[in-house]
């Protein structure tokens, strides 16, 4: 469980260390503890990290490492006990109220009584913005749901529901996209397919993206920068940059470089358990 001295998350952020605070995702010394029956559980312990705006950040770690907690803090759904979070100089709460966030969870969380089109339009309604039908059509095309606009969630497969929730996350043209294991409940084949689509969408819109996942290959394939976390308490073990060119093709997953990086990450993840 001990974190090696060398693995402190400083070297990783050095490359972008000169970035102006207005153009970074910044998490500094964030701690969050939950009170449970008979004691407290420290979910995050002085977590710090940075990433440039417009980049794709992945958080990986064992369950209980606080990666979802960190995402909820970034989404303004929870407040840290200490420390601060900001994206391009704004707090999560400010971002949230301004409608600059998009979110998708492992559970698609669609409104069961609304069809695809109306589910996608939900965030616009919350923000009292007009729903541009052309924009929603474009999103439906983007996630490959043409022909299912009027279907309700119970008529869709798990993968299709997840696509709706991705489209919904994008409808406000968010500057920050928060993804909490959005493909975690899907089978491997579907997950790969949606990973490719997610990259395509991301390249087209370039939102700053934070992806929580427990799949190493998913993190390496999608992210510019991977934050490896350890559990109980949640700490950053190491921050790893991913050098591959964009757009990444599925073939990249067969290269030695990809495997080397994946192996390194899995050493970081499993090594700590043994120590």
């Amino acid at each position, binding site marked *: 469980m001990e974190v090696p001295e060398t693995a402190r998350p400083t070297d990783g952020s050095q490359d972008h260390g000169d970035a102006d605070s207005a153009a970074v995702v910044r998490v500094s010394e964030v701690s969050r503890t939950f009170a449970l029956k008979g004691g407290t559980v420290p979910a995050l312990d002085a977590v710090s990290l940075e990433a440039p705006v417009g980049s794709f950040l992945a958080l990986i770690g064992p369950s209980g490492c606080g990666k979802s907690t960190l995402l*909820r803090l970034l989404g303004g759904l929870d407040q840290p006990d200490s420390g601060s979070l900001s994206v391009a100089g704004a707090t999560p709460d400010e971002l949230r109220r301004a409608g600059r966030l998009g979110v998708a969870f492992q559970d698609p969380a669609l409104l069961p009584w609304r069809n695809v089109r109306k589910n996608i339009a*939900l965030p616009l309604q919350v*923000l009292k913005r007009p729903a541009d039908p052309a924009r929603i059509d474009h999103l439906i095309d983007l996630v490959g749901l043409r022909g299912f606009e009027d279907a309700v969630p119970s008529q869709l497969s798990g993968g299709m529901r997840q696509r709706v929730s991705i489209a919904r996350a994008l409808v406000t043209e968010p500057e920050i996209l928060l993804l909490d294991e959005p493909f975690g409940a899907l089978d491997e084949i579907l997950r790969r397919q949606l990973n490719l689509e997610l990259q395509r969408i991301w390249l087209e819109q370039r939102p700053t993206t934070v992806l929580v996942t427990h799949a190493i290959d998913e993190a390496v394939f999608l992210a510019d920068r991977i934050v490896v976390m350890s559990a109980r308490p949640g700490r950053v073990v190491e921050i790893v940059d991913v050098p591959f060119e964009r757009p990444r093709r599925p073939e990249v997953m067969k290269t030695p470089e990809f495997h080397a990086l994946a192996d390194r990450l899995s050493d970081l993840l499993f090594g700590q358990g043994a120590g």
Partner: protein
Amino acid sequence: MNQHERRWPATVVSLAVVAVIWEIVGRLELIGSGAFPPLAHIATQLWHDRGDYPRHTLGTVEAASLGFLIGNTVAIMLALAFSRWPPLERVLRGVGLTLFSVPFIALVPVLLIAFSTNTARIVLAALAVYFPTMVSTLVGLRQVDQRLVDVVTVSGGGELAVLRLIRLRACLPALFAGLRIAAPAAMLGAMLAEFGGGFRWGLGSYLLGSLGQANPARIWGIGLVATAVAAFGYAVFALIGSRVAGATSSVTTATAGPEALEGDGREPLWAKAGFSLASAAVVLGVWAFGLRLLGISPIVAKTPLAVVKYLTTGPGAATARHELLSALGQTLPLMFLGLACGLAAAFVLALVLSLRPAVGHAFLPFALVSQTMPLPALTPLLVLVFGRGVLAIVMVTISVTFFPAFVTIAQGLAQAPRGPSDLVQAYGGNSVGVLRFVGLPNAIPHLLTATRLAAPRALLGVMIAEFLATGTGIGNLINQARGLLDYGMIWAVAAAAVIVALTLTQLVGAIEHRVWRRFAS
């Protein structure tokens, strides 16, 4: 759809079998010597009385509908307020629990003192619908998928946006489930008020007037018409509810369990005690100041303090105490006996049916009829069949507790996950093994829930039977006190009945809460 279609044959066959048995039993006068008339006689009598029914039915339905409307409007508004400001619910919880557990027949004389006859009937109907609708709506408003709330929150929405876009729509199935129960409850309230006398038109007064006429077929006819009206209300809201639920049942995982209403799991003891005291104070305050506000003479309308004085220091306090205690001594043992028999029967039958679901479908129509049959209509019928003695009281109590308990337990068992049963079978267990390791332990928390729900009904059942038939116990005492204009006794009996029912539900509720908590984790 398919399941519905497959259910029909069993239902139709069982209805036909019962009709035939009924006819035979009636013709041969096998039960209660003529108290159980054949269906043909009941139909003939209905035809003969066809001129009377429209006005009587309309009288009850009109009051019940008005009460239904008023009670539900208040219930829904308060549920919205409670979901917005939870402490408000905690403070007013005592009022809700009192309304849930009060035997409404104890309120009849009180309401007839406070209001004009027709207003009293509407008010009782409104009081009868308040609790089921309020609780269902509140649970519906609270029991939303947290992820949906998160999506709206991250998109920049506040509590109001969550309410507008999610809660209001998501609560509809629960709301209609409440209204479905509230419809027969409104009939019950209106008919009970009519038992208090002074009504020209109403199914309850028609029934009361027919009791002494030695015409069982007419009493059965009135009972069946009242049931049909209540069942119609039930069916309308059940139908709308199932439409709405079809479009609502989440494709995602449900989150909240039976704890949804609590929201006070981990607060310190002093806070719990504080809320309980505040909520008790509100009940007493409503009692004391409500009467003042209505401008009723203090001679007629006794405050809590006046009732205490009546039973302790007032003239004749010793006699009054003695009367009340000996009446309670008659009522309570019968209530417990009936409750225990009804619950035991429901428990056993639900367990057996969980292993043989097909039998359950044949049983369904009778469960539905008994759910919707107004208690005031059922009681005279049971008195006809079982006579004016202790047996009738016990039978009334069994029948009012059996079916709701059966439905609660059976539904609970039906919702149990298949996994554990499959596991027992995978290790070579037979249906007895499944019952022992899975069914029985699963059923126990549901049995406790059923007990809590059935206990107030048991007291109401005993009191109605005492009032109508046997002339014993507190059901008779409150009626007698009305005749003697002994207002202190009316209020004392009403208060005693509420205290008994409230204590019982709270006791069972506390045990239930513990057991549920253990099973939930």
